[in-house]
């Protein structure tokens, strides 16, 4: 007989907000940095993307700090990078913030001329893109390192978070860009088209992620919790409708600013759904299987 497995509750919305903002910041940076190589027309997109990365990740880190039980020791977060993904992630995210900060400063006189002359902008863009991808992917690997939680401990989580991060990053740029001048209309339309493709991809990744939960009882219980259990309203309304279907339809109807708002909220809901669906494996004492009493 299967015990009544319960989801973890120690990581909630604060961690979800952190995972979400780290992803969004990374996605916006990558989009911006690539736009920087596409010529004069894309200059506005480049600036928005570069300037979104650093503040979003920084605010995300504030959410992480708010969740800590003993904030005074936060500076120790990177002491064990040899084994801990929080420590590795702290290093990745710190380097990303530093690189993006330098990148932003490059846009300001007098550093501007220096950067262009030395070709340093290309170098810093490549470095930034590498660490932005690190930031987007590590948030998924971080969860996966908790091996007793089978719902997290799968290669699909980093992929899902990466696709969602790119999508929300692009949508954040679209949202801010559409408030600006008409000159950006062309590139923004192209971005919206790319976003449609990424949303479709995200739908498939999510589908395969949930399909892959059939292997062990605890991840089947997670899938049940997410699809028909207490997390289901958040999943169906927040992730499926608001995060995927609405932005897809609105992008197709060319209302991309509204699509962006829906999609960004959906990205946050996605992180919370994955966190709230995390169920520990039951204890196995010989023939007996026991749901863990706490967590």
């Amino acid at each position: 007989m299967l015990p009544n497995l319960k989801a973890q509750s120690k990581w909630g919305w604060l961690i979800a907000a952190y995972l979400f903002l780290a992803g969004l910041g990374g996605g916006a940076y990558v989009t911006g940095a690539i736009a920087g190589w596409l010529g004069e027309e894309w200059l506005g997109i480049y600036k928005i993307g570069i300037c979104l990365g650093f503040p979003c990740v920084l605010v995300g880190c504030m959410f992480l700090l708010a969740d800590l039980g003993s904030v005074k020791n936060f500076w120790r977060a990177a002491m064990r990078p040899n084994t801990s993904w929080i420590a590795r992630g702290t290093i990745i995210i710190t380097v990303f913030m530093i690189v993006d900060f330098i990148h932003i400063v490059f846009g300001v006189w007098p550093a501007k001329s220096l950067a262009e002359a030395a070709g340093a902008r290309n170098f810093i863009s490549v470095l930034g893109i590498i660490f932005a991808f690190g930031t987007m992917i590590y948030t998924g690997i971080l969860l996966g390192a908790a091996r007793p939680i089978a719902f997290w401990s799968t290669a699909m989580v980093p992929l899902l978070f990466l696709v969602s991060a790119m999508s929300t990053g692009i949508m954040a740029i679209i949202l801010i860009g559409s408030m600006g001048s008409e000159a950006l209309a062309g590139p923004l339309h192209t971005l919206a088209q790319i976003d449609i493709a990424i949303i479709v991809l995200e739908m498939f990744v999510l589908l395969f992620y949930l399909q892959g939960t059939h292997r062990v009882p605890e991840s089947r219980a997670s899938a049940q919790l997410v699809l028909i259990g207490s997390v289901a309203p958040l999943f169906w309304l927040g992730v499926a409708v608001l995060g995927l279907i609405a932005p897809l339809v609105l992008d197709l109807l060319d209302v991309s600013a509204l699509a962006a708002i829906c999609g960004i909220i959906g990205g946050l809901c996605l992180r919370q759904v994955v966190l709230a669906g995390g169920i520990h494996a039951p204890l196995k004492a010989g023939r007996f299987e026991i749901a863990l009493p706490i967590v």
Partner: protein
Amino acid sequence: MPRYGFVIDLKRCYGCYSCQVACKAANHTPQGIDWARCVPAETGEFPQALRQMVPLVCQQCSDPACMKVCPTGATTQDENGIVHVDKNLCMGCKYCIMACPYSMRQTVDEWKTYFPDADGELDAYESYIKAQWEEKNGYGIATKCDYCMDRVKEGRDPACVEACPAKARYFGDIEDPESEVSILIRRERGFQLNPEFGTDPSCYYLPPR
């Protein structure tokens, strides 16, 4: 160096919760923290159903999942195989709680009184245990069982072992082939919980009848 471990005899445990209470008394743990606990389990269906009490403590894994994921270095393993957490180094990220297959890392945010009728004031005993808890552990950090190392150093057994009236718990060096625990593990086919996570616990269980 010894590798301290437990042997818990499932056929002897009758679920009196003495271990859970003795641990609370010895370690002054607040509400919501049970380093030692006893949980009911069942298997099979009527008429072949079985009910069993399963006492749990920190499994003191030789390859601890909680220590691997700890980003701060607050979680360490001593030369006796006991996993400790340093309250001055832990930042309370709760990653160990997610990674422990046995749910033995626990955290509380505040002291909740055991005696809610007492007008919000703590009585003398509870003030004492609260101060003890704050001195040795505290709030927000991921605490854990250390097999009562301060008692063991004085030559005593951990509190839960001393308290068990059924003599279902044994404490000793599982690396010494002549120790009582090693003999029990060999003779009665002791097994570990959830071996699939590869953490190699130092806590062994003897099968129920």
